[in-house]
């Protein structure tokens, strides 16, 4: 494991990360490696620290100790927007959109930085062709084009979840992290959302938190099992299925 071979470093590398809130350790000695182009699922019981792990990687909160790397570059300690600009985008477990803005504006805002328009105050946002095309494409992808002028806060729950995914992938980030994208959806909606995720993350690195085991085992190349803030197993779906520790700690007690 010597020098950094660029292009071959892992998409995400979490090394010995610990997170304490007060004197409670929520994340302990977390090690996680996600290869380029891999679809990686994180599973674990409620309160295991899955969302906290997302927050640590995406810069929402800072690790108490340890290190996070994105494509070989240390990102722990950076602000969320700095990490986002380096090509990592995440969604939220609890829908987190721009409620008073239209669906179109929501997605367009997520396109602006990546297309290089930044804080521009001398350009008309409506006459930027690449922004318009990209926004339209995303809206088509997430099946919300017919709702483009509706304020995001007035969408149905399932629509908001789809918009959440749309905002996350709009920047074209190469590393996409989705926190329970299908939570609260019906079976049919889940199926649709999974097909969507599969298609939209083609050729990208995906980290997904998901409770639905059929989704996890159908989608993921590798799975990590998080229990009490610690990864107890990491491997292919087959390896995870067979792992006795996992059976005992998690899969055994999952009824569905």
């Amino acid at each position, binding site marked *: 494991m010597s020098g950094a071979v660029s292009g071959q470093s892992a998409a995400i590398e979490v090394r010995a990360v610990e997170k304490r809130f007060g004197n409670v350790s929520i994340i302990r000695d977390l090690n996680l490696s996600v290869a380029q182009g891999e679809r990686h699922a994180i599973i674990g019981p409620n309160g295991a620290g899955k969302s906290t792990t997302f927050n640590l990687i995406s810069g929402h909160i800072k690790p108490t100790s340890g290190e996070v790397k994105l494509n070989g570059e240390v990102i722990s300690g950076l602000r969320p*927007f700095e990490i*986002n600009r380096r090509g990592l985008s995440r969604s939220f477990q609890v829908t987190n959109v*721009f409620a008073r803005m239209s669906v179109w504006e929501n997605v367009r805002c997520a396109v602006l930085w990546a297309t290089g328009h930044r804080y521009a*105050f001398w350009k008309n*946002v409506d006459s930027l062709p690449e922004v318009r095309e990209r926004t339209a494409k995303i809206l088509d992808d997430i099946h919300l084009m017919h709702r483009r002028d509706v304020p995001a806060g007035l969408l149905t729950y399932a629509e908001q979840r789809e918009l959440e995914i749309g905002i996350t992938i709009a920047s074209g980030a190469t590393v996409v992290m989705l926190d329970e994208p299908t939570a609260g959806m019906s079976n049919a909606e889940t199926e649709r959302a999974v097909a969507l995720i599969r298609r939209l993350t083609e050729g990208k690195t995906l980290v997904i938190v998901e409770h639905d085991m059929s989704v996890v085992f159908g989608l993921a190349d590798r799975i990590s099992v998080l229990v009490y803030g610690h990864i107890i197993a990491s491997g292919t779906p087959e390896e995870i299925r067979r792992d006795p520790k996992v059976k005992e700690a998690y899969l055994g007690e999952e009824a569905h």
Partner: protein
Amino acid sequence: MTLTSTSKPAGDGLRFYGVWLLGIAALIVLPMIFSSGGSLTSFSLIGIAIVFALSYNILLGQTGLLSFGHAVHYGLGGFAACHMMNAVVAHKWPIPLPFIPLFGGLGGLVFAIVIGWVMTKRAGTVFAMISLGIGELVASSSLILRSVFGGEAGITTDRTALPKMFGWSFGPQLQVYYLIAFWLVLSAIAMYALTRTPLGRISNAVRDNPERVQFIGYDPHVVRYLAFCFAGFFAGVAGGLAAINFEIANSAYLGAIQSGLVLFSTFIGGTAYFFGPILGAILVTYLQLGLTSLTSVWQLYFGIIFIGIVMFSPGGIAGLLMMHRPLVRAGTLRTVIPSYLVAVVPTVALACGVILTIETVARFAGGDVINLLGIGFKPASPTTWISAAVLVVGGGLIARLTWRRIAEAWDRAATVARDRGYLA
């Protein structure tokens, strides 16, 4: 499910420019119709108030920043303009008066650049409190730093001493009005254009959800800072216009009352639409000019209006108007109008009762006769008290019934509009 139309009707662009051209035409024609000195002064003040309120809405409506100290930029713009005018005269610089508001803007902008980075680190209560503190700080400093602010008396200037432009001396109020109208149009277009830039849209995103903005690549702090600088600039322009209009800048420009007034105008007009603050500024300036001559307790009425808007129409006048748009489109507005008409009489009666009560209390200890709708009421007479009570109680009870009918008619109309796909 509802289906909102995705393609914009072809007439939209035309209508859009039509509204702006109509506004400009109105500004040109107004002083020809109402040419008395009093109306010219009112129009000038309204023009200044509109620029100021629009600048405030860059913060409140577009970026979600509640400032209690926006007049600081207005005032510093005023002082900058006064000093500039005096310097132009003293050094015989070839800068005519119409360029002076630009220096007012720079005054507001420079202060925003200096103070803004620290102020906009956080939004919400923290920002509101700091803005209050800065406002007090600057207002009190203005009385201490006499060389810059001229102490109690302020800094005076003579706008006619500057080089002429197109042969205009800007002595007559009419010429000053047109100067203000020119800057009003310029500023309004610029501020409207700002809302349609990447920065303008991201400001809206920061307003709605500053946390999420960070995860689409933006630093909300930078966004707030830039918005703050723009707001400071245009407030400075408004202050510069005021300095030209009054030929003076003093500490009252910078103070809490001025800051409160702009918040008040913007909120009453409605922050969610670009034209909201324009309506608010017109109404509040008119009320201010009109009420002060009618009653000594005009601030009380301001307070009642403000509370009424906050409670019953948080979207302000603009919000109230725009609520009707889906109904107009769906063609169901006419089903609501009759209930409005029915409500007018009892509501006016209630309002008269409230006014009579307030004025009776205010003038009880030897005030003048209350003149309401051409009828004279003596504050000390029991007839007046009984009239007030009857109007308040009777008007109030009937008004409540009619309001309920409005709500019902409204619900029916909205349901139809929703079914026809004009309401999400």
